[in-house]
């Protein structure tokens, strides 16, 4: 029987900082090899603490963590060699060039110079930074700095790539190209853990997701299961013809925003066919339709609010 080793397995992970703040409470988490995993949570939830512990920048208080079966307490060096980290804050030497940064990073992993130069060339090209390779990093734009951090995190070919808000402050075009790049890395076999504030990003990229709030794991499931928990979705409909009043007794929760725009709440017992049938019956034609807010965003807010109200974890 063939058994696969999880890319990451965390058990009862706790962290209390020296100032007494309990950042993590008994976190259990398993990320299978090859996954694109989303680690979500509001600011200060503990996501970066988890990443800090895995990358050895934060000392854990208790619990265990294994990376591809290697216990960080037993052989942290080997565990770290499997991980590539792209932190939230820019943390490279701004006086060094992108080329130097990648070559040095490869060197820290014991990669010979001739291999490092090939990889640096490849990643700088893929990230659109080749022309800037000899500029001081301080001169790069915000988007370029983000891409440089991703290139640096990949230069030693990690099996597990951890991205902490990799697209923060990046324009939509670059964000999309980064998504494509990361999806390709994932398809090539790199396990990816992503933390992000852009829930649309998590929804597009991640197959499985965990939500942390105030150091507690409040959800750990597949994206599909998570989205099934959405009770109601609110759509905005742009109409072809103006209407003065929306017909009553449609069985839908409808609000007229202006004569061309309607807001419709569709719960999970209804479907969009039902909505369109109702609209066609009333001779109302829809030009376009969109979600009022990202559906995952609303669910995320609901889950975090529930967790805060109950004061207990929701498993």
């Amino acid at each position: 029987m063939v058994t696969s080793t999880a890319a990451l397995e965390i058990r009862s992970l706790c962290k209390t900082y020296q100032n007494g703040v309990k950042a993590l409470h008994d976190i259990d988490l398993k990320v299978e090899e090859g996954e694109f995993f989303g680690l979500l949570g509001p600011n200060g939830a503990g996501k970066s603490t988890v990443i800090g512990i895995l990358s050895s920048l934060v000392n854990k208080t208790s619990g265990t963590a294994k990376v591809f079966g290697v216990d960080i307490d037993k052989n942290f060096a080997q565990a770290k060699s499997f991980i590539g980290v792209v932190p939230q804050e820019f943390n490279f030497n701004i006086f060094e060039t992108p080329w130097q940064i990648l070559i040095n990073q490869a060197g820290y992993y014991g990669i010979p110079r001739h291999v490092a130069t090939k990889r640096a060339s490849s990643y700088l090209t893929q990230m659109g930074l080749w022309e800037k390779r000899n500029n001081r990093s301080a001169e790069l734009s915000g988007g370029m700095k983000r891409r440089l951090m991703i290139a640096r995190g990949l230069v030693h070919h990690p099996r597990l790539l951890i991205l902490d808000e990799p697209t923060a402050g990046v324009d939509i075009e670059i964000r999309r190209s980064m998504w494509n790049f990361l999806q390709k890395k994932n398809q090539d076999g790199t396990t990816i853990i992503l933390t992000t504030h852009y829930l649309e990003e998590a929804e597009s990229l991640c197959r499985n997701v965990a939500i942390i709030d105030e150091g507690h794991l409040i959800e750990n499931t597949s994206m599909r299961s998570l989205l099934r928990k959405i009770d109601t979705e609110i759509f905005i409909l742009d109409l072809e013809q103006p209407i003065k009043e929306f017909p009553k007794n449609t069985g839908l929760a409808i609000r007229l925003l202006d004569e061309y725009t309607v807001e419709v709440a569709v719960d999970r017992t209804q479907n969009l066919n039902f909505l369109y049938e109702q609209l066609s019956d009333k001779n109302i034609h829809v030009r376009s339709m969109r979600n009022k807010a990202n559906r995952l965003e609303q669910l995320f807010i609901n889950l975090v609010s529930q967790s805060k109200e109950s004061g207990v974890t929701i498993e």
Partner: protein
Amino acid sequence: MNSREQLITFATIVTKEFIRFMRIWQQTLLPPAITTCLYFVIFGNLIGPRIGQMDGFNYIDFIVPGLILMQVITGSYSNVVSSFFGAKFQHSLEEMLVSPTPNYVILLGYITGGVARGVIVGLIVTVVSLFFSNLHIHNLGVLISVVTLTAFLFSLGGFTNAVFAKSFDDISIIPNFVLTPLTYLGGIFYSIQLLPELWQTVSLVNPILYMINAFRFGFLGISDISLPSSYLIIGIFIAALFVINLRLLNHGYGVRQ
């Protein structure tokens, strides 16, 4: 990490450090040359002739070893303290910490960078001193070993300072209030034989006295301190500081939360 990979990592850190201080040579290599020129002009040419001879040598020849070593001490210390603290401050140190690099390789890499700067500064100041004095070498082996070990020792000192430092002010306190006074009182400008007996004894507590005297022996063949005592003191301080720094790194003091 196998030993070959560790060697690559070590070379990476040393190269990075070397490029860093060479890139800012106006701040790292030029000032010691200018400062030493001023010392030679003032203490050597203007005041020196009035002092006459010391331990059988012209005053300017007597102070050359101490002046060279003073710049070696300052150069090696400030290289490591500013580089390591700078990396801490802008978090680029995390590049190394998240990698599998063993802590002793990180420590040795920074220290070697400090030694490199110290030795290069020493060479520059030695060349400058040739314009002002007649240098002759009594024992080249002693000169090379003392300058390397002293640079190693003060690089370790700079590393300790950087680990504890929380602001840029903290990295200048030790050089200003500890290192400079100890260096001046370490016998650069005088032989401790000139001091009253009490102060001769007090001077023996100053470790820099041992280094300067050993270095002076390498040049002039004279010393207030026996050579084995000097090597012993330097060795004890290196061993102690190496262990302290390694323990600090292993505990993550100042670098991990």
